[in-house]
């Protein structure tokens, strides 16, 4: 095993370990904020007709009458054994609920970022060929629209203009079977792609234009490279590392952006689950979502660093 590979493993291990205090910190912050929220989760659990005595009894049973730090320590103890608790309202296991929603959210987010990556590469290449030309202006307009148009509106338009008249995609929900699942995810993923691709287009376009004047590209041109071989082999290859960093940030955004998309498309994902759990003050569920989202975001950045070190020889990661 080379030193480089060993160093990379050590780096990954160190980052995974550093994930623990980070997630614990985020969890503490989330629990503090939840404890400051108005309302009474125990009342939500027991119902409107219950007497105050019954509500207090349930609050005690659920540990909701304990100070935040005590609840935090108790919860961390449980999480360390893999137990994320049970939903206050439905009694279902939090881990089970999140596990059933995770594939929906991940599918939309991953497909959305892939769509955004492909579209941004194609559009940025087209735009960078003639800076300030018609195509470039059009691509810049697309990027501005991608940032400016509300995701919710784009989702409704996609349903009204594509799903409804053509019948190619379901208007909402997830169908049965793999093919139906994929069919259900296409439009939501396109919407996530549209809402996340703008920064990628802008970043890649700028880098491509800058690289066009770079010495190594000029040298390649004098050596006879032109067209796709020049663009892909020299410009794009060197423009990829900054694109990966931007794409990672957008992937994080896409994860949270799925909240809106899931509501618009009626998809039972984590975004919609988190929104409902927060609105019903289902603390164990909210805490479970916070942990899973935090871990996913940290893993995205870890993955990005590793990929960057592979595609860009100048980047060295060591423990």
């Amino acid at each position, binding site marked *: 095993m080379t030193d480089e590979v060993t160093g990379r493993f050590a780096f990954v291990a160190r980052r995974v370990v550093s994930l623990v205090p980070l997630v614990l910190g985020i969890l503490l912050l989330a629990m503090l904020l939840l404890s400051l929220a108005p309302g009474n989760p125990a009342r939500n659990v027991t119902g*409107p007709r219950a007497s105050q005595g*019954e509500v207090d009894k349930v609050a005690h049973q659920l540990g909701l009458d304990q100070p935040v730090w005590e609840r935090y320590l108790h919860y961390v103890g449980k999480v360390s054994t893999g137990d994320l608790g049970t939903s206050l*309202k439905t009694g279902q296991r939090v881990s089970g609920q999140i596990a059933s929603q995770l594939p929906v959210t991940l599918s939309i987010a991953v497909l959305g970022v892939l769509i955004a990556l492909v579209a941004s590469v194609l559009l940025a290449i087209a735009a960078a060929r003639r800076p300030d030309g018609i195509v470039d202006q059009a691509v810049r307009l697309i990027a501005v629209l991608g940032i400016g148009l509300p995701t919710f509106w784009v989702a409704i338009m996609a349903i009204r203009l594509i799903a409804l008249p053509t019948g190619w995609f379901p208007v909402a929900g997830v169908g049965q079977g793999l093919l139906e699942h994929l069919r259900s995810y296409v439009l939501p993923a396109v919407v996530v792609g549209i809402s996340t691709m703008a920064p990628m287009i802008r970043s890649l376009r700028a880098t491509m234009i800058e690289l066009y004047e770079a010495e190594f590209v000029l040298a390649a041109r004098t050596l006879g490279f032109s067209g796709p071989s020049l663009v892909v082999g020299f410009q794009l290859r060197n423009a990829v590392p900054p694109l990966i960093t931007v794409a990672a940030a957008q992937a994080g955004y896409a994860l949270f952006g799925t909240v809106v998309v899931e509501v618009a498309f009626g998809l039972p994902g984590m975004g919609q689950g988190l929104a409902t759990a927060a609105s019903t003050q289902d603390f164990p569920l909210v805490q479970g979502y916070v942990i899973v989202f935090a871990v996913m975001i940290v893993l995205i950045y870890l993955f990005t660093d590793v990929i960057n070190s592979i595609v860009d020889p100048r980047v060295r990661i060591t423990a």
Partner: protein
Amino acid sequence: MPRNRLAAAALAAVLATTLVACGGGTSGSASNTPVQGGTLHVLRATPFEGFDLDKETLNSTLQISQSVIEPLIRVGEDGKSLAPGIAASWSYNKSNTALTIKINPDAKFSNGKPVTADDVAFSVDRWKAGPNYGASFAGIKSVQKVDDKTVILHLAAPDTSLVAFLSWAIAGVVPKDFGGQSAADYFKSPIGAGAFKVEKWSANGDVVLAKNPDYYQPGRPYVDKVVSSFASDPNSVTLQLRSGQADMADDVLPVTASTLPKGVAHAGPEHSAQVLVMNTKVPGLADVDVRRGIGYAINFDDITKGAFKGFGTAPTGALPTNLSNWAPPSVPYFTHDVEKAKSLLAGKAPKKLQLLYSNDATSSAEAQIVQDNLAEVGITVQIKSADRSTAFGAMASGNYQMMLFSYSAISPDASDPAWFAVATHTIFTGFPVGDAVRILTDYAATDSKQAKMKAITRLQDLWTNEAPFIALANTRLIEAINNNVHGAHVAPWGIYYFDTIWKK
């Protein structure tokens, strides 16, 4: 309310009413023969709360739950009567202190085991133990098993209201000892004697129910499956109904109803009471004249047209309407009378009040109208929105001044929502409940319809004279039903049975 806003509201109301079929909540032609098979796709506006009966509060949850864990008694198709179900018949003794129930001999749980008196006795104990609904069944002193198919509920005091409460979804019949499971495990995957059994469920996702082949009603249910999907976004509701992806949608907002194809939105009779609750513990609102003055300041026409788009009428009392034994107050209920309001408020009106409401389009419009109305009598109202749960939490803990709320029945008896108001300390206003409890006890003690209606009038008078809350409108709940769906008999409070529905 500014004139242009009122004009727009009136136009919206006219448009909405022309788009809506007023079928009294019933769809389909009675002459058509039901067709077996198919899947019924229903959209629910709220998350599913699970099958733990005592924790169920939302209509969509109650509806799903009762189709799996069916209660003893059903609500009649007219939405105003009770009908036999698992209880084939019932009768009170002369003093109304014992209720004999005969169990339908064909009633079976979805695992094929018959429903017995032991199951009913166990179920009653469960209902009584519930922190939320338990008090409603506390009057059942004991359950006597006469034979396998007969029980007698012995009551602590005469209670003719009880039969209505036995039709509540939360009074579902569960197998004795949960069939050997723990309560938690049972409610995760319950076995009931309802028309459907649970295939899968989640709070935010689909609840999938499959036909129970052992259901006691011959030929029912008609559809093979029911899929209830959570659709919190009104746009999505419209689009799913238009595309045919959904067959029905529960609890449709008035603004959504006007976007649906002709004949799809079915408004039930006026029922749900939209109320302005006032915290009587707040110094400014402790004075009955102030509360009554606020009542006379409300422009009820603005509320019904502006906020409810014509899907409601001005209130004629404090209680939800279109219920068995409902009666109006003997004193006139509040009407828009600014001069009377000003004279009641003179020298006592608080300068500023805060109005809390849950952040949906209807409540927002209602809050703005109340704000405008109270400004006319010199009260500045600061309106504050919160999500439903937070707003409810603030109200339940008494941490509010005024709040918009709605309450309705879950069975066809006028005492049902009245007991809800009492159980919630007259909907969390802190108003003393002693008089109301005495009136409702008198109501429960008699089996005379006339005497029951007299009791309801006394209660209406109490809540009109003391005004712990002001009813703003009696609204019509809207159910969206696509034209291929038949046999949906929606009760005034918005709940119906899946087993009577069939699709063409």
